[in-house]
């Protein structure tokens, strides 16, 4: 049997900086650097051992930490950055790779939504589109096709926000608990999304350290990438987000973006959805979690609403989801860190070190990024056992 493509790569350090509505004195690079130092300390690895940096601030970090000459990859987003970092090791380009991301000092105008949520592309800008509306257009189509309800979406929001409510590290710690009625009673933003169906905005950084497997023995709890892949249909927020858009007759529709990625990731891992102990799903809007549960195969197409209504995603349920509070409550610091934070939390779950909502004995964690409203979706499956 061929060796596993990621069998030579271990995750040995993960770290979140403090997360807050504002982190005065920081910009995106300095908070990413703070994340990088934290992850290196967590890994017990000296900065001088790092020979690759991945992330939007990769070049700046290489200079600030004096890592040169080293490899730098400006790959922006969380899971693709993780997989790019792993590939740098498996292809022999690097031995110790730092993935870092952060956001601070970006969202300074409270009269508008966060800048990263409102790109001004030609065919959407005049209609007042922004991420909530783009994702709402996908959610509406799902409601028409499958009868998905606002209550089912609110169940997702209430579950994840309550996960953040009990997490002292969350920006919105101690703001709950939340019931379905609380979500539905919040003001409407972009129908069907109420305010509490949507991500928050905040500032913060995070980082991950990966090493060649020979060095994993120095780590008390190395973790492994069991599978990973990415799907995209085109640029985000540039064209109408059409659920039924299929570039080719045999392609999945855009509403099922991430399906191919999940199938590849599970095949690489030799696992099935039933083997996943905890799912750190990216939660920009409540509906997206319902969609991902279907698309990744945790339930049948159109069954995501009933699946969440039956309590499956709650702590102690069949598949606890987004256990730190996600972008709705834990943190949402710009497009890069917020995606990588799903990987960080998945790693914390597998280490068994989550102070809140730890899933007992978690062996396999799935994490995701993106969503249908943005026409991309990434999947990674992490585990405790070396593949």
């Amino acid at each position: 049997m061929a060796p596993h493509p990621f069998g030579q790569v271990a995750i040995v350090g993960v770290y979140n900086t403090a997360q807050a509505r504002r982190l005065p004195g920081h910009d995106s690079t300095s908070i990413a650097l703070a994340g990088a130092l934290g992850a290196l300390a967590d890994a017990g690895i000296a900065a001088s051992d790092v020979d690759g940096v991945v992330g939007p601030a990769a070049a700046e970090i290489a200079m600030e930490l004096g890592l040169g000459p080293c490899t730098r990859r400006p790959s922006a987003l969380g899971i693709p950055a993780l997989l790019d970092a792993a590939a740098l090791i498996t292809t022999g380009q690097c031995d110790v790779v730092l993935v870092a991301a952060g956001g601070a000092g970006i969202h300074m105008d409270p009269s508008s939504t966060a800048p990263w949520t409102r790109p001004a592309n030609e065919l959407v800008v005049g209609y007042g589109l922004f991420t909530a509306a783009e994702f709402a257009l996908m959610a509406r189509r799902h409601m028409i096709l499958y009868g998905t309800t606002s209550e089912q979406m609110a169940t997702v929001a209430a579950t994840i926000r309550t996960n953040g409510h009990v997490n002292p590290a969350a920006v919105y710690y101690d703001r709950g608990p939340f019931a379905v009625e609380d979500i539905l009673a919040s003001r409407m933003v972009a129908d069907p999304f109420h305010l509490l169906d949507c991500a928050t905005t905040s500032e913060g950084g995070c980082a991950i350290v990966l090493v060649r497997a020979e060095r994993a023995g120095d780590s008390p709890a190395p973790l492994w990438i069991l599978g990973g892949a990415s799907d995209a249909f085109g640029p985000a927020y540039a064209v109408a987000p059409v659920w039924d858009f299929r570039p080719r007759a045999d392609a999945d529709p855009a509403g099922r973006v991430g399906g191919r990625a999940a199938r590849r990731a599970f095949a690489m891992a030799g696992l099935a959805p039933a083997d996943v102990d905890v799912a750190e799903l990216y939660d920009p809007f409540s509906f997206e979690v319902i969609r991902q549960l279907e698309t990744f195969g945790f339930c049948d197409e159109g069954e995501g609403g009933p699946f969440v209504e039956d309590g499956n995603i709650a702590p102690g349920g069949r598949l606890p989801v987004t256990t730190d509070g996600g972008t709705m409550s834990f943190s949402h610091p710009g497009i890069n860190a917020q995606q990588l934070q799903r990987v960080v939390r998945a790693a914390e779950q597998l280490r068994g070190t989550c102070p809140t909502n730890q899933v007992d004995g978690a062996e396999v964690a799935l994490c995701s990024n993106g969503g249908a409203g943005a026409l991309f979706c990434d999947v990674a499956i992490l585990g405790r056992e070396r593949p």
Partner: protein
Amino acid sequence: MTILRPQPPGIPTPRPSVHAEAYWEGCRRHELLYQRCTACGHAGLRAFTVCAGCLATTPAWERSAGSATLYSWTVVWRPPSPAFTVPYAPAIVRLDEGVWMMSAVIGCEPDDLHDAMALTVEFHPASADIVLPYFAPSRP
């Protein structure tokens, strides 16, 4: 009663890209144009130079009759910036020619919006240079 209306001038407006100039010129003439591949008939989600269906490089502009059905919509109550007047209803419509496009529905109440609602294009100025196509309920 809240009737959905076009946005008044002052909103952020599109900067026409080189391949979509004909589309925006058509809007100024109150003509709704879309691109179709002359080789295979494929129509995409926006102007293209290579056909995603057959890789031919000969798209041509065609004029839509302006009739459509409502495919998906949202009603925005918290806009991305104060430039927009709420409520408004961004929508995906499917032209009778089989093309999906991004627009917004006007001329009805938010509660009137429903799947497959029959719509007709209307043009409204958004700035001195830009005219935006909107869709209103078709009159029987």
